[in-house]
C-alpha cells in the first residue's frame, strides 16, 4: 500500500504542486520613470493563476500632498503587492485610484486600495460597465485563476468623468480625459502635466495585439485624436512600461487601419463573418504577440460593426 501511495505521489507530484500548492507572486517591480512617476510592466500574456492576473501596466504619480494610482492589477493579491511596492517608494497618502476602464486586469486589484480618503475615479460609463460585467468577470476568471482570485471584489468609482477633469495632488495636476467608445465603452486617460507622462490605459497597446471590446471605428478615431495630446512619454496599457509619444501610436494605428480595410473589403465581397474572421488583419500577425488569442475576435466584432456602414 505504501508503495502504491508513493507511486501515486510520484505521478501526481508535479500537477499537485502546480494545481494545489501555494503559489507565490513574482516580486512586484515598480520603477520611477520620471520624477515622482512610477510604472509597473505587466506580463504580455493572458491572466492566469501563476501571474495573479498581472498582465496590465500599472502606475502611480506622487504630488506634494498625496498619490494617485492608475489601475490596480488583475487580482486583490496583485493590488496588495502593488501597494506594498508603492509604499517602499513613497509614504504619502493615496488620494485617488484612477481606473482607465472596466477590464479585470485593470480593476481587480481595487480592493487593496480601499480606505478613508481614497477616491476611485473613472469614466462616466465605468459604473455601468462594472455593474453589468463585474459578476461575469469574477465568475469567468475564478475558473481560470482559482485561488489566485481570492478576496477580489468589484469596487466602483465614486468620481465619474464625462469629459475632462483635473485632480490636484499638491503642486501637481493630473488631467483625466474620458473618450467615446473605443477600446471599451469606458476609456479614460490620465496625463501628468508636470512631466508630460500620459497613462493611456488600453487605448494604447504595444507588442500585445490591440483588443477591440468597444468599437473598431471609435478606436481608430480616438487613436488619431490621442496624438494631439501634448506629452513626452506614454505608459501603454500593455507592452513596455514606457514609450516615446506620440510615436508609440504608430503600430496600433497600422493594425486598426489594416483590420478595418480588410473587413470592409470582405463585407463588400459578400464574405461571411466566419470567413472574414479567418483572414482579416492576417498581414499584421508577425508584428504582434497574442495575435492568435485576439485577432479573430476583433475581426468578428469589427465585422458586425462595419456591416452597418453605408446605405
Amino acid at each position: 500500500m505504501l508503495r502504491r501511495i508513493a507511486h501515486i505521489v510520484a505521478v501526481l507530484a508535479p500537477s499537485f504542486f502546480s494545481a494545489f500548492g501555494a503559489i507565490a507572486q513574482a516580486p512586484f517591480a515598480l520603477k520611477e520613470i520620471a520624477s515622482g512617476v512610477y510604472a509597473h510592466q505587466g506580463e504580455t500574456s493572458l491572466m492566469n493563476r501563476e501571474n495573479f492576473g498581472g498582465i496590465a501596466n500599472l502606475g502611480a504619480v506622487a504630488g506634494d500632498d498625496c498619490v494617485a494610482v492608475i489601475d490596480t492589477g488583475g487580482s486583490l493579491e496583485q493590488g496588495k503587492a502593488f501597494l506594498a511596492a508603492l509604499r517602499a517608494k513613497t509614504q504619502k497618502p493615496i488620494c485617488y485610484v484612477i481606473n482607465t476602464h472596466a477590464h479585470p486586469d485593470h480593476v481587480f486589484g481595487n480592493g487593496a486600495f480601499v480606505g478613508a480618503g481614497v477616491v476611485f475615479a473613472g469614466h462616466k460609463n465605468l459604473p455601468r460597465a462594472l455593474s453589468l460585467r463585474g459578476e461575469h468577470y469574477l465568475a469567468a476568471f475564478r475558473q481560470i485563476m482559482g485561488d489566485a482570485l481570492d478576496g477580489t471584489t468589484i469596487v466602483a468609482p465614486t468620481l465619474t468623468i464625462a469629459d475632462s477633469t483635473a485632480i490636484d495632488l499638491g503642486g501637481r495636476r493630473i488631467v483625466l480625459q474620458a473618450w467615446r467608445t473605443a477600446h471599451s465603452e469606458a476609456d479614460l486617460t490620465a496625463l501628468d502635466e508636470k512631466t508630460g507622462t500620459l497613462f493611456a490605459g488600453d487605448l494604447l497597446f504595444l507588442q500585445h495585439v490591440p483588443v477591440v471590446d468597444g468599437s473598431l471605428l471609435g478606436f481608430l478615431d480616438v487613436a488619431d485624436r490621442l496624438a494631439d495630446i501634448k506629452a513626452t512619454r506614454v505608459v501603454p496599457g500593455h507592452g513596455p512600461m514606457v514609450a516615446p509619444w506620440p510615436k508609440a501610436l504608430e503600430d496600433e494605428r497600422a493594425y486598426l487601419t489594416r483590420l478595418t480595410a480588410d473587413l470592409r473589403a470582405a463585407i463588400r465581397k459578400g464574405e461571411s463573418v466566419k470567413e472574414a474572421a479567418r483572414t482579416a488583419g492576417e498581414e499584421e500577425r508577425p508584428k504582434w504577440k497574442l495575435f492568435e488569442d485576439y485577432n479573430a475576435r476583433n475581426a468578428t466584432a469589427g465585422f458586425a460593426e462595419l456591416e452597418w456602414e453605408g446605405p
Partner: protein
Amino acid sequence: MSKKMRAAALGAFFLAASAAFAETAAPDPWPGLVTDIFQGRAIAPADGTVSLDAPKRAEDAAIVPMSMRFPDPGKVKGATLVIDQNPMPMAASFTFGEKAGVDFIETRVRVNSYTNVHAVAETRDGKLHAEATFVKASGGCSAPAGKDPDEATANLGKMKYREFKSAVAGKREAQIMIRHPNNSGLQMDQITRAYTPAHYIDAVEVWQGDDMIFKMEGGISLSEDPNFRFTYAPNAAKTIRVLAHDNQGGAYKAEWPIADAS
C-alpha cells in the same frame, strides 16, 4: 517524504479524481431539452436532411455564427437551433414558406460556456432529424453584456437589407439585419441588485411579396442586432418585407425593392 506531505498528496489525488468525475458526470441537458422543446418526440440522425456549421471555438462568445443547410429544402418544414448549455437554450426556431426553397440560413448566437449545439430539422412528413456539434466559448473578457449600450438603444429597430449573388442557380441570397440590444435579462446590476429587464426580438417574418420565406421565433440566445443570411427561391415579387416583434411589444417593419427582380 513526510507523512504530512503524503496525506496532502492523497488529498490532492481525491480532489483531482472527484473533479474529473464531476466533469464527466455533468448532466447532459439534451434529453430534457428534447422533452421541453420537442415534446419528447423521436429525433433521428440528420441523414442528409440538415447540416450544421458552427465554429469549434467561439472567437467572440457574443457573436457566434451558426449556419444550417438543407440539401433538399422542399422536404423541410422548419428547423430549430438549440444551444444546449445556454440559460435559454432554444436560440431560434424557423418555419419555412412552402415554396421558399431555403437551403441555407445563418444567424449569430451567444454561447455561454462549452456546449453542444443542435440543429433539428422537421420534415414536411412530421419527422425530426438532428445534427449536433460541440462549441468552445472563448470565455475570458467577452462578457455577455453589449459593447455599447447607448448606441444599441439609440438605433433600436433600425433594419438593413443586403443581397448577394447566390452560388446556386435560380436561388437568391439575402441578409436581414435588425438593430436590437437583445438584452438577456440575466445581467444583474451589482449596485442596485436589480436585473436589466429582458428585451429581445421574439419573432421575425420575412416575405417576398405575398409569400413567406421564413418566420422565426427567437430568444435571448440570439446575438445583439439579430442577423439572418439565407437563400431562397424567387417568386417574381418586387419587394422583400420584414416584420419583427420584441418581448416588450415593440414592432418593427421594413420593406426593400429586390434589386435584380424581373
